[in-house]
């Protein structure tokens, strides 16, 4: 255990706990875009920037992955932090001027019109979709491609990926709603990934309930009763539903 100070509160924490988790417990809100508790911290949006004073030296670090250390003093709302966050928000706004989350952040931090252009990208490149697909789902259907300002998220060769099981975890986590997921007439479509997957019909009620590919994927990995793959959750007994829920976002 180490002892540190966050915004004046002296707290004890397990060594190397990310600062954000400690702040959370104290009820201190730190804005984030690329952080998700179920995923490895990635540190790309830099929005969670806070100031850390260590051995008399102050510097800006990201709270989502900075490990708790003995004796450090953390400021989550200092002038320097706010100034940096504001500019980061302005930069994000100039990339994705139409994204609702960014507009809300801008509103909260009093960022007006971005001075560096008004792009209409919808993706902020936080990488939540890429990471959930690889870390949790394990499908690896999408990844970052190119580099620098040309960086984007896509399937290999920008064509439908065979690995995509249509689970929709990416769409679920996307903070800007850039990934649209539609179930139409027995088919799940994820336009951004150029993917469509047939849905499985429940053998009892006849409703479509999940992509066949996803059910197969789960079937191959977990030893679950066949019924799971035939019947929709509503029609299954509650205990089965719980088992599926245990698979996380799938």
């Amino acid at each position, binding site marked *: 255990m180490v002892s540190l100070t966050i915004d004046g509160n002296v707290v004890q924490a397990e060594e190397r706990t990310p600062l954000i988790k400690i702040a959370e417990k104290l009820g201190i809100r730190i804005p984030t875009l690329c952080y998700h508790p179920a995923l490895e911290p990635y540190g790309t949006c830099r929005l969670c920037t806070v100031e850390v004073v260590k051995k008399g030296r102050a510097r800006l670090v990201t709270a989502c992955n900075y490990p708790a250390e003995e004796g450090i003093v953390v400021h989550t709302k200092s002038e320097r932090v706010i100034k940096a966050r504001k500019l980061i928000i302005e930069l994000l706004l100039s990339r994705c001027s139409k994204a609702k989350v960014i507009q809300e952040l801008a509103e909260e931090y009093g960022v007006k019109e971005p001075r560096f252009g008004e792009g209409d990208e919808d993706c902020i490149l936080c990488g939540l979709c890429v990471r959930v697909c690889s870390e949790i789902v394990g499908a690896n259907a999408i990844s970052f491609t190119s580099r620098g*300002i040309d960086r984007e998220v896509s399937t290999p060769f920008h064509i439908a990926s065979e690995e995509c099981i249509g689970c929709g975890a990416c769409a679920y986590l996307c903070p800007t709603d850039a990934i649209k997921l539609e179930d139409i007439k027995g088919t799940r479509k994820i336009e951004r990934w150029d993917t469509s997957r047939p849905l499985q019909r429940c053998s009892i009620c006849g409703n479509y309930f999940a992509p066949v590919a996803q059910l197969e994927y789960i079937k191959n990995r977990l030893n679950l009763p066949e019924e799971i793959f035939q019947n929709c959750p509503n029609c299954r007994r509650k205990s089965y539903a719980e088992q599926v829920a245990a698979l996380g976002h799938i």
Partner: protein
Amino acid sequence: MSKIKSTEDFEKLQESVNKTRDPERLCITVCSGTGCHAYGCEKVTQAFVEEIRNRDLQDKVDIRTTGCHGFCERGPIVVIHPQEVFYQRVKVEDVADVVSETILKKNIVDRLLYVDPNTGKQIICEKDVPFYKKQRRIIFGNNALIDPTSIDDYIALGGYAALSKVLWEMKPLEVIDVIKKSGLRGRGGGGFPTGRKWEFCRNAEGDRRYVICNADEGDPGAYMDRSLLEGNPHSVLEGMIIGAYAIGSHQGFIYVRNEYPLAVKNVTIAIQQAREYGLLDRDIIGSGFDFEIKITRGGGAFVCGESTALMASLEGKLGEPRAKYVHTVEKGLWDNPTNLNNVETWANVPVIINKGWQWYSDIGTEHSKGTKIFSLVGKINNTGLIEVPMGISLREIIFDIGGGIPEGKKFKAVQTGGPSGGCIPESLLDLLVDFEKLTETGSMMGSGGMIVMDEDTCMVDVAKYFLNFLKEESCGKCVPCREGIRAMLEILTRITEGEGEEGDVELLQELSEVVAETSLCALGGTAPNPVLTTIKYFRDEYEAHIKEKRCPAGVCPALIQYSIDTERCTGCGACVKVCPQEAISGQRKQPHSLDQAKCIKCGACLEVCKFEAVIKR
């Protein structure tokens, strides 16, 4: 050759190698560094081989292709030993004369000598050439003496003696202590004390430790690491083996930039030879210490020079940096303690062991010890690689060694530290070069690129150049670097196109501060330096672009105009032929005129006009 199993074996090897070396024997060395290669040194070497064969002199004369001598401006370079006659710009046609005169009759071929532009005197010996005089070539000097593909050449000059001494006479902690006391700091840019890094790595928790040589050298305008690896690969290997022993590592990697095929080739040969001699792999020199080295080629990404990105790339992953809140000496390659050092840093190690830390720490300034290799390039007379003691002044480097600015132009700035560094103005020329002093100017030591700029260089354009470079080289992972560089570049582009506005400079400064403070890795962290230093020292140029819509250096196309001086134009028509736009017209032998509406400002007319009749404003 059987493997060396003890210090006695090693001494025997040294003796036998030395026996074959006669210091009085004639030897023609031809530099085959990259610069000389480009000048066609291969053909020159071939011509020497043939000439010597035709005259049946094989028994009397050796021919040796060596690594870079540094004076690339004057390549191909040929030095005749033992007299050390220095010939420059040697062509195939000169070879017969060199052999018949210098080799056979001991006469000098005057036309191949270097002429000191200041005194007009011809200089015979390499060491008397002003370019070499103020240098102190303790790391780089052997390049010019050895064939990089011959381990015996290296051993003849004392190579691997330091390794033998370390393995048999010193404990790992003693080695670390010597390196610490020597004051050696990393040559890759950051200047972190090497001995301390080794110590951290040695003490870090883990069963397996790695040692890596950073030869990614992405800084545009720096090529010393390449020259060392190409010209004296064993010195780097020896340093790495010593480091590995001190740290307790058994596996090393050399991460080489993809554009350096010759370096890969020579290092591969060197590793093979060292293995055969028992200087690598199992039971090195019979000491029981094992260490092997693998070579990995980079894929062409500047950011992969950054430690965490480099390690990701070595693991076969995307070359993206990660947070370094836990340092790589604790958790690096495959999460094991890993020690990364630059090529030149490693090459310093054997020298320190051989000569002792006292000797080494006598060179340099209080906090920067030893020498540093710089590539002196750009608008400078003597382009090349130089090795100077820390603490030498910029003025000495640029004017005494570099021979000043070509064509009588005025010096404007010197850029150090590559895309992470900055531009240092004339007023600071007396600055004594070391880690701290360069950082104080807002620039940094970096890997050792020194790009000299004259009055014809536009400083706003230079800032734009670096941001353009970084825009493509940023990995794109984090917002401040990716979006911040884009935003800054947009502003700079606007300024150079005459669309700059009041407040742009302040906006650049505001962006710079946040990009530097919040970027994930040092690429973004230092990206603003070229912008900040040019603003700091050349603000007037920014103002001229913004307020007067004028580029004082005459570089930014949108702000210059070409026109024809009717007084001087003879109507020769040379410009008409080269103009891609047919923008120039006129009667033959009559002054011509230039149509501004058609001109795309390519400058072709200015280049061909012999009468200085094309004016650029």
